[in-house]
């Protein structure tokens, strides 16, 4: 199935996206409103996760800010830069230390729900990933978050 999404001549390839998270990346990078051709693979077989998502974007470059924003949803995914059908750069995406204006604070009494949000990430002793709100100082498990600012 993966081969049907096609090869790209120039652009980027985001592979090994956790299943279901491609949608967040489409929204954050505004791919639904972009002039680039985009190939999207959902629920593809993956040795790493069992199932994965995949996005290929033709004639698109990605800024560090955009990488930081999407990394909340595709930590461990691989980002490849393609030129003339060849991979010229490849990196594994890591969760940034600061996550700006992506997460909606689950604390309904938090002032950041009215303004911009900012979270600091950390990994605890049993490898669970926590994010702490810069404003209300509460910590949450990253994988238990459910509300995001995507526009």
């Amino acid at each position: 199935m993966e081969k049907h999404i096609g090869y790209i001549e120039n652009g980027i390839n985001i592979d090994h996206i956790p299943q279901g998270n491609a949608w967040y990346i489409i929204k954050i990078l505004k791919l639904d409103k972009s002039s680039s051709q985009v190939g999207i693979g959902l629920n593809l077989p993956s040795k790493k996760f069992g199932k994965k998502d995949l996005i290929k974007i033709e004639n698109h470059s990605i800024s560090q800010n955009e990488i930081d924003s999407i990394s909340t949803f595709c930590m461990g995914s691989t980002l490849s830069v393609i030129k003339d059908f060849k991979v010229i750069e490849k990196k594994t995406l890591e969760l940034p230390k600061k996550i700006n204006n992506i997460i909606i604070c689950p604390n309904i009494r938090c002032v950041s729900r009215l303004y911009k949000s900012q979270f600091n990430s950390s990994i605890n002793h049993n490898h669970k990933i926590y994010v702490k709100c810069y404003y209300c100082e509460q910590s949450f498990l990253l994988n238990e978050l459910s509300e995001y600012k995507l526009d």
Partner: protein
Amino acid sequence: MTNLKNKSLVSINDLTKKEILDIINTAKRFKDGLIKSSLTNKVIASCFFEHSTRTRMSFEAAIAKLGGKTIGFADSSSTSLAGKGESLIDTLKIISEYANLLILRHPLDGTARLASDICNIPIINAGDGANQHPTQTLLDLFSIEDSQGSLEGISLGIMGDLKYNRTVHSLITAAQLFSMKLFFISPPSLRLDEESLFKLKCSGIKYSFHQAPEQVIDQLDCLYMTRLQKERFNRETHDEYKISLSLLNNAKDNLKILHPLPRMEELPPEIDNSKFAYYFTQAKNGLYVRQALLDMILGEN
């Protein structure tokens, strides 16, 4: 001496151990009458978007004693924010143009941090929702120091609602800096939350859990009580977390009872005249701690 000049105080977590000790030492000098007025010609905005009696009045008394002037409001119903729907950010920006320092209480968590980012004057957080109330923690620490002569290694009992109480969480964080031995006394349903517990485990300090004050009263230097909120206690356990004169028969001579006030049934008036009662002095200490902070942030010394 640490330099707090023109710095904001948003969270107890922002302060180092040395800064806390310097604030306590300065508060002590105010208590002993060794420092005089230093806020002449300074205008301080005291903005309470949520009502408060002790905190607001002790701040305003501290300003008056230092010779400064206070502007502001005691609740938000009389402001343009409520009346005309002005945004909070605009209100804070404008206030910061009128004053040299802003004392802020707000019902939403994190408002003091937001204010410290957008205002060009120092902020003192006087309580942001359920989050932080750093001057309360500083006056609690000052009270322990003042009544025991030290903070290091003190045996501190903390009793009541340990799960939801804001002052308890901040006090525990600070207690870790001073290697205190902590005794937590609460019903199982109001035990310490997971996050605080995790931080305690990492800190390496000694702590233990108890279901009744009788089990530990003879070991404590200070007993920090919290208000019993009836909706969070069931009827049967309620009475076990009240203090009584007979319970105090087994207390150490130097024991002092602290309470952030207001109190409910957990701390009956019969305790007020015992040698163990310290909570009214604790409330008064709030004045010295706030004088010390205002002086260190804005003073002309």
